[in-house]
């Protein structure tokens, strides 16, 4: 099964925590890549670099900043290929982020679509274009329900179009919040909790990574997705050195 590991940060880590992360993360990446359970992962740029896109009455509305203005934010993600949730939990609990902050495991409801550029993207080789993460922020109270067949069909057509244009890097819809598991490790003990880490009502129903010339193009692509009409899509660049 394919899982998404959301790296949830609640504020910036303290200097000593940062030192632990910098020391330990490369070993985790090396081990999980070697075992074939980690497909790739990237760190996102800070939330304030994001734009949030909505389409209402045919008008594209863009606001600067992340969708959720909470102290907690998604700092990056890893994509996993695991036998089952127990293996995903094991990988998550070994991830040094979960020792200091927390990670959230979400299954892809319909598998993960990886494009030809995915492995170069995973290595951080972006070339002349820039990758952007499109996070589909959905609330359970308005618009068509999450998992609505018509919206999923339209979303898939949108994705197919991007694939045909050679700009879809990866992505697909995620399982709902009912399928989420949050993992923390404290004092060597793995602590699991049912549900997403963020307690706000809205949640990320799917992700796509697109490669674009610039931010403006990423916003246009987001505006063409059906979720933008009913809910909101956050567009955020990745961190690059």
């Amino acid at each position, binding site marked *: 099964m394919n899982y998404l590991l959301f790296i949830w940060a609640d504020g910036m880590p303290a200097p000593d925590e940062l030192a632990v992360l910098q020391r330990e993360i490369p070993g985790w990446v090396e081990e999980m890549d070697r075992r074939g359970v980690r497909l790739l992962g990237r760190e996102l740029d800070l939330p304030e670099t994001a734009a949030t896109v909505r389409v209402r009455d045919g008008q594209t509305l863009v606001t600067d900043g992340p969708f959720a203005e909470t102290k907690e934010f998604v700092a990056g993600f890893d994509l996993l290929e695991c036998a*089952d949730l*127990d293996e995903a*939990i094991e990988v998550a609990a070994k991830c040094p982020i979960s020792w200091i902050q927390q990670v959230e495991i979400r*299954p892809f409801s319909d598998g993960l679509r990886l494009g030809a550029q995915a492995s170069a993207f995973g290595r951080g080789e972006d070339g002349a274009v820039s990758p952007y993460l499109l996070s589909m922020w959905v609330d359970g109270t308005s618009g068509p329900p999450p998992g609505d067949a018509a919206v999923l069909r339209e979303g898939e057509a949108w994705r197919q179009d991007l694939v045909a244009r050679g700009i879809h890097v990866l992505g697909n819809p995620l399982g709902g919040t*009912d399928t*989420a598991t949050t993992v923390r490790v404290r004092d060597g003990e793995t602590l*699991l909790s*049912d549900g997403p880490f963020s307690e706000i009502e809205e949640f990320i129903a799917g992700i796509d990574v697109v490669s674009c010339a610039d931010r403006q193009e990423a916003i246009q692509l987001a505006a063409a997705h059906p979720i933008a009409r009913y809910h909101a899509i956050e567009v955020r660049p990745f961190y690059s050195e």
Partner: protein
Amino acid sequence: MTTPAVQRAVDAAFREEWGRVVATLIRRTGDWDLAEECAQEAFTEALRRWPVDGVPQRPGAWLTTVAGNRAIDRLRRGARGAELLEQAGREALPRSDTNEDAMPELFDETDEIEDDRLRLIFTCCHPALPLEGRVALTLRSLAGLTTAEIAHAFLVPEATMAKRLTRTKGKIAAAGIPYRVPPAHLLPERTAGVLAVLYLMFNEGHSASSGTELIRAGLCDEAIRLGRALQQMMPDEPEAIGALALMLLHHSRRHARVGGDGELITLEEQDRDRWDKAEIQEGLRLLELVLHRRQVGPYQLQAAIAACHARAASAADTDWREIAGLYALLEARMPSPVVSLNRAVAVAMAGDLEAGLAIVDALSGEARLERYYLLEATRADLLRRRGDQAAAAAAYERALPLAPSEVERRYLSSRLQEVGGSSATATTPNS
């Protein structure tokens, strides 16, 4: 065979076999709802067939076969679609014979079926599932309680419980929770998780609550039954035995701990003749057996504490010094303010009232005990024993609004009156 006799046989088979039938069907089909529905149909079929054919020698095997056939039928129908469903009506699908002698491989896998029940309990109690869902699903899938029965036991509407069960089963499928006994490196932690679910189930039934006494008693019975089953499945797990002993020793006091008017009777004032001797004997025997293994854990320690009470002929004979020592061991392994509070009582009862009160005072700032009525109730009780009536009354008054049920409120009110306080705050206005 008479109908009541068959009914009894079916009831017995239901208690013994429901979990096994469901567990095996889940392994074969991967579909929890299908497994439950087909198990239900098999029991209905038994009520129809057993009066005519007689009760089969191995009811569990018979039921698993019938349920398995139903599942095969349904899966075939589902796969062929609506068009083929009509055909299936005309030419009956080939099915396995429910004569057990004619059913080969099913009956040679007794071990596998026993493992299925373990797979089921570990999956129901998986730590990535919501805690309430774990308890509910264990009661539904393993114990065979209906959604309505579980809803009653937890005082929620049936629709709420149905949703909880659906959501829990939904996560197992969608998040890829494996249907298996966890591998060795996960086993200790996951076993503790299973025991926690069973003990929670037991406590839910054991905690005094008026009106739903009978249904809640059912929860205790189910928890003990599942505890026994788990102990048979995992004979090498000392804490499984410890948890079973603990539940039995607590359960032995059930008739003595609530009076005729539903009032709470403290351990000290219980009529010990009303304690269930058979359960005490079984609990003590299990505990003695397991303590010899010298792999002590929190359940064994709690059972050892309960055993001290069970062995005392009267309240005055209680070995409080031993109990205080056991609480200290428990506190070291499982630090919790509630354990410390219990140690305070034991220390006070062992003769050192002041030391007991000092432990209670030290716990006063503890945030986790802020809404816990037993902190103030314990302080009140120790102050009362010291003869400090006014301070005791004040503490009872602080405990009252925090008490979770009417039974506990009534107990505190009567104590409050004893120490000369007014229980006006406790009496609800006449409507």
